[in-house]
């Protein structure tokens, strides 16, 4: 009798355990689906060694632990605390008027999930976002409870990226900065009139305000750390933002000018570009796209890299005569073809900045070239070994015995034709096959 009773208690407990797990599984699915359109998933910017008694560390350069079938990196547990939302933004899957499943994690559930995933080396940390419930401050407070719990109760030492909710008060932003490595606010739509069209409840002020708070917090913290070396850090990995591409009529010039302006601020580390995916097909304010503008997104990232690592100014990439990036060739090659007077570059003499501007030579190759030429003259065979893409570079360089193709004259039309032609030739089946005609 006794044993029977005992058993039934156990099975009761077990069934509640299973039920709870099913619930978590359901929540995880729904809230991951809601969060996946945020492209940012980097875990870089903070180096933190592990401390005794604490869990985890931050690697500084970011580590991707998996790649989804669309080839995107999975570095953080990118998840929403809740997908209830009071806003009705046309581009968003979680908008108020959408009929999607709604749910929310409890603090405890999300904390446990993060820690267990982390211990198994599935993730680098947590990317916490949320739909706006009741009001921005209420949502922000709940999110802060999760990250605070992780950091103080569980002594979690890994990476945390947290969304700052537009319209949240400065006190809450500075509270969040104590626990999170990176804070971010998404701009989403570069031009304010377009933002107002698609998200009537939002304006640029509600987005730039929290950005400004983060910026202030970071610069105040830098000052403080100059005086007190061990003062706790405030969002050490800075802030990032995201813009949706192709949902509205902004040109690449508008987008890149805005990014360039954002990069002027010291705390802005990354601007992400997210090709618009038609999640809400029945909204007439949005364009009917057959496919996400992936090529354009790629070119924008290339242009972004040029601004951050190659010393290009935004006006050199896009201007009033060319407001859009060339989808056929990359922006660096575009620049080179528009400026034939700057080439050919003599790799044995030119300075680093100029070598960096040669199509086919990246940051690493340029550095190696500068280092190597202290030991001897640079030859073309060596360039190949260094990893220079000679296919593109050969039209723009001279070095030692190597003269550029076409006797030192850069002919933009010809180069463009050659470099874009090859790709299409490959696609043609049997393009290289010799055809022999037999007369009947």
């Amino acid at each position, binding site marked *: 009798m006794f044993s029977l009773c005992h058993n039934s208690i156990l099975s009761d407990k077990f069934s509640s355990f299973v039920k709870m797990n099913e619930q978590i599984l359901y929540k995880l*699915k729904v809230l*991951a689906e809601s969060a*996946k359109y945020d492209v940012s998933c980097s875990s870089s910017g903070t180096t933190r060694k592990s401390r005794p008694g604490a869990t985890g560390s931050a690697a500084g350069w970011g580590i991707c632990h998996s790649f989804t079938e669309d080839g995107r990196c999975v570095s953080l547990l990118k998840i929403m605390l809740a997908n209830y939302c009071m806003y009705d933004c046309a581009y968003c899957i979680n908008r108020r008027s959408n009929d999607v499943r709604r749910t929310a994690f409890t603090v405890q559930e999300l904390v446990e999930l993060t820690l267990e995933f982390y211990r*198994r080396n599935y993730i680098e940390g947590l990317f916490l976002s949320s739909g706006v419930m009741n009001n921005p401050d209420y949502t922000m407070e709940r999110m802060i409870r999760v990250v605070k719990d992780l950091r103080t109760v569980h002594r979690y030492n890994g990476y945390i990226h947290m969304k700052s909710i537009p319209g949240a008060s400065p006190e809450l932003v500075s509270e969040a900065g104590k626990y999170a490595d990176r804070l971010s606010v998404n701009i989403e739509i570069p031009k304010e009139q377009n933002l107002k069209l698609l998200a009537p409840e939002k304006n640029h002020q509600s987005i730039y305000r929290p950005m400004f708070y983060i910026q202030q917090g970071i610069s105040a913290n830098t000052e403080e750390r100059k005086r007190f070396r061990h003062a706790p850090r405030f969002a050490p990995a800075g802030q990032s933002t995201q813009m949706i591409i192709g949902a509205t009529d902004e040109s690449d010039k508008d987008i890149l000018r805005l990014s360039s302006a954002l990069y002027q601020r010291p705390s802005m580390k990354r601007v992400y570009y997210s090709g618009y*995916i038609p999640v809400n097909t029945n909204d007439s304010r949005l364009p009917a796209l057959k*496919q996400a503008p992936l090529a354009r997104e790629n070119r924008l990232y290339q242009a972004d890299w040029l601004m951050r690592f190659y010393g290009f100014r935004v006006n050199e990439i896009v201007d009033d005569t060319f407001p859009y990036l060339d989808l056929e060739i990359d922006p660096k090659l575009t620049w080179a073809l528009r400026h034939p007077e700057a080439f050919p570059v003599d790799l044995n003499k030119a300075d680093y900045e100029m070598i960096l501007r040669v199509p086919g030579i990246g940051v690493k190759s340029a550095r190696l070239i500068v*280092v*190597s030429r202290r030991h*001897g003259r640079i030859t073309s065979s060596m360039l190949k070994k*260094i990893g220079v893409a000679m296919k593109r570079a050969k039209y723009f360089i001279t070095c030692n015995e190597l003269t550029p193709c076409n006797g030192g004259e850069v002919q933009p039309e010809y180069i463009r034709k050659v470099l874009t032609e090859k790709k299409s030739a490959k696609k043609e089946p049997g393009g290289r096959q010799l055809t022999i005609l037999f007369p009947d």
Partner: protein
Amino acid sequence: MIVFRYDKTFDGLLTAVFEAYSRKAFPEKLLSETEPLPLFAGQEHRVSTDTGKSGRVWKALNKKVPKEVCSMLMHVWLSELEGSDELLFRYIRKTFDAPCSIAGDFTDDDITEVAKIAKKVSRERLRLIQFVRFQKAADDIFFAPVSPVYNALPLTLPHFTDRFASQKWLIYDIKRRYGYYYDLKTAAEVTLDDDRRLLSGRLNEELMAQDEKLFQDLWKSYFRALTIKERINPRLQRQHMPRRFWKFLPEKN
């Protein structure tokens, strides 16, 4: 032609460098103790590994070149590629003979080759750090099987001991049949006598901790939910996450 025989350890290689300089005779080939002599081998010398000598060579190297270069040499050694020992021998000799560090001189073939191999090995190291997946066993030890192309596991230890300092773990190279066990203090090399059960790369259900299956399932469904169907690109996925790692990833099984 001068030929050296040594025991194919890193210390042995450094001892060979020491003896070459002390004998003023530099080998053209480095053989293991059992390999047959090549044709026209003139002089043969057997190097007996001496940690005193190898230590001196390593110290001198550290003095001569920055420590990044030393770690690069270590990477090349761990590549276990054929002929990498001879390459290292030439590299070390060139380093000692030159007045200053030659690491930046990519006009030299050996130097480019060393840099290239070191890069491959360090990439493998990074992939281990990315794609190691721990399974929690019933005794609270986190177990992860790996089988890297190059022997990059020792290079990952600083990362893993730092990252997972608060849990016991065992990472086991099932290809080379050895691993490292971390007991909350240090990571020590271990070889399991009966590792046949682990070779599949998956813990049996009875060896798993109670909630291990649950978290694997959670991770799998999270991974699936994260895919954006409009952007599917399997080629890109394979490029970043080569197929050979898939058998250890719960999300790809």
